[in-house]
């Protein structure tokens, strides 16, 4: 194909979009909606994933000891737990350090709340902070720590705390989001595809005379097909670019807002730099595929050349 012919097909394809104004608008809107929903789900999933990862990386097991445990027992426990294969690190946190930690977590404004609980009045127990190599083995490690406790006649461990429940819920949410998003997006994409194919069908019907004349003057089949193909692809590309711009602009606003207003709530969204290219690539890619797919179906079905 000559370069001038390629340009001609591009021109014709673009003109068709304007000629079928309302139908083009309808298919663009439907692509926009499907891709926008996809985008929202995508960003949501990315954030949940990143939150899960953050929490996973922070997974610690806190082992609180009875108040009357002596130093020898502490060392013995520390060695036993530290020698478990799952455990990467074990740190002893004395009751004094525990108080400091608590104070720090309460923040600058509330630090005097704990005044008067020092030394003998410290109600906190001694504890260990245990970290494991693999978040999945938290439950196993906890089980073994409990066994160590039961094997000891003194039962020096008062309580073992860990965030397993939170993680499991998060995983469930992520998975549910993924499936719901996938089903919804497939449904919407198919709808969008049919709308595009309908638009192309309208173009083909509207231009039946023209196609007849093209055939009479000796146009090849591919010459006749190309503009329709380009029309569909352009509808897909244009609407997906619009979707990407609006979605990411909105998301940037949201990220800004959470950073300004909600930073205290420890919500940290995935930044635009981290998620932008991936989201844009996926949306524009999918939009193009939907456009090409829709026009191909119509060309095959209605354009008997």
């Amino acid at each position, binding site marked *: *194909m*000559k370069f*001038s*012919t390629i340009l*001609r097909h591009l021109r014709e394809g673009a003109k068709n979009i304007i000629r079928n104004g309302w139908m083009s608008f309808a298919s663009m809107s439907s692509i926009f909606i499907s891709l926008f929903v996809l985008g929202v789900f995508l960003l949501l999933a990315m954030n949940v994933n990143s939150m899960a990862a953050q929490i996973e990386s922070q997974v610690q097991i806190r082992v609180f000891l009875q108040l009357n445990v002596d130093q020898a027992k502490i060392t013995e426990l520390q060695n036993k737990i530290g020698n478990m294969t799952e455990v990467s690190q074990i740190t002893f946190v004395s009751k004094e350090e525990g108080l400091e930690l608590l104070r720090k977590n309460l923040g600058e404004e509330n630090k005097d709340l704990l005044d008067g609980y020092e030394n003998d009045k410290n109600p906190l127990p001694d504890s260990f902070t245990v970290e494991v190599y693999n978040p999945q083995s938290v439950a196993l490690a906890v089980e073994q720590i409990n066994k160590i406790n039961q094997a000891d006649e003194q039962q020096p461990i008062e309580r073992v705390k860990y965030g397993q429940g939170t993680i499991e819920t998060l995983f469930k949410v992520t998975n549910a989001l993924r499936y719901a998003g996938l089903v919804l997006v497939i449904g919407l994409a198919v709808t969008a595809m049919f709308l595009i194919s309908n638009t192309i069908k309208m173009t083909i019907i509207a231009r039946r*005379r*023209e196609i*007849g*004349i*093209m*055939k*009479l*003057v*000796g*146009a*090849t*089949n591919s*010459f006749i097909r190309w503009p329709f193909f380009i029309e569909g692809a352009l509808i897909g590309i244009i609407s997906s670019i619009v979707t990407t711009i609006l979605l990411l602009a909105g998301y940037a606003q949201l990220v800004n807002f959470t950073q300004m207003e909600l930073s205290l709530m420890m919500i940290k969204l995935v930044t635009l730099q981290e998620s932008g290219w991936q989201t844009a690539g996926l949306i524009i890619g999918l939009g193009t595929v939907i456009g090409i797919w829709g026009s191909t179906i119509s060309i095959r079905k209605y354009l008997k050349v």
Partner: protein
Amino acid sequence: MIEMQDIWKTYTDGTHALRGVSVRIDRNEFVYLVGPSGAGKSTFMKLIYREEVPTKGQISVNGFNIGKLKPRKIPFVRRNIGVIFQDFRLLPKLTIYENVAFAMEVIEAPRRIIKRRTMEVLELVGLKHKHASLPAQLSGGEQQRVSIARAIVNNPSVIVADEPTGNLDPETSLGIMNLLEEINLRGSTIVMATHNRDIVNSMRKRVIAIENGNIVRDEARGEYGYEV
């Protein structure tokens, strides 16, 4: 050159449009195709530009065996055949210039040549000054001249015209006929179906009469031969 050998055309509804037609039309001939409505004139012409394929028999146009042509070769055969219709078949949203240039775009001619050649044929049909008008702004005769310009712009060796003066008044018809004669003189073979007795009788050419799917008359300088 067009050659038909024992051509039969039966449509799917069982109509026998042509029943064993054999004819030979030489290069540069001007042929009138006459006969009552439904006699098979249109089918005869459609076979030439491969809108239809014969049910039986052989037809060759410019040396191509039209009946056995592979579908992807059809466009290239059509580029050598200009077709003119009674209803002009112009594209209403395109200007006169664009309507004619369209036929050249389709064969991927370079833009510069398209421009030169389109203006050339518009001048030949006397419509150069209206190149920017839309078809609706032109009279019937002018529109038919545009469709003739489109038919000849690619220099086809054969022109097929299906009642080109059917919608036009006698005076305008005469202008169209002069144009077709001029094109014929420039070297194109012309096959023209018509019901116009005056034209056939005043511009004496070869006349082929078809009735009931058969050729009933073929005269070198014939007359229309039917009462109107």
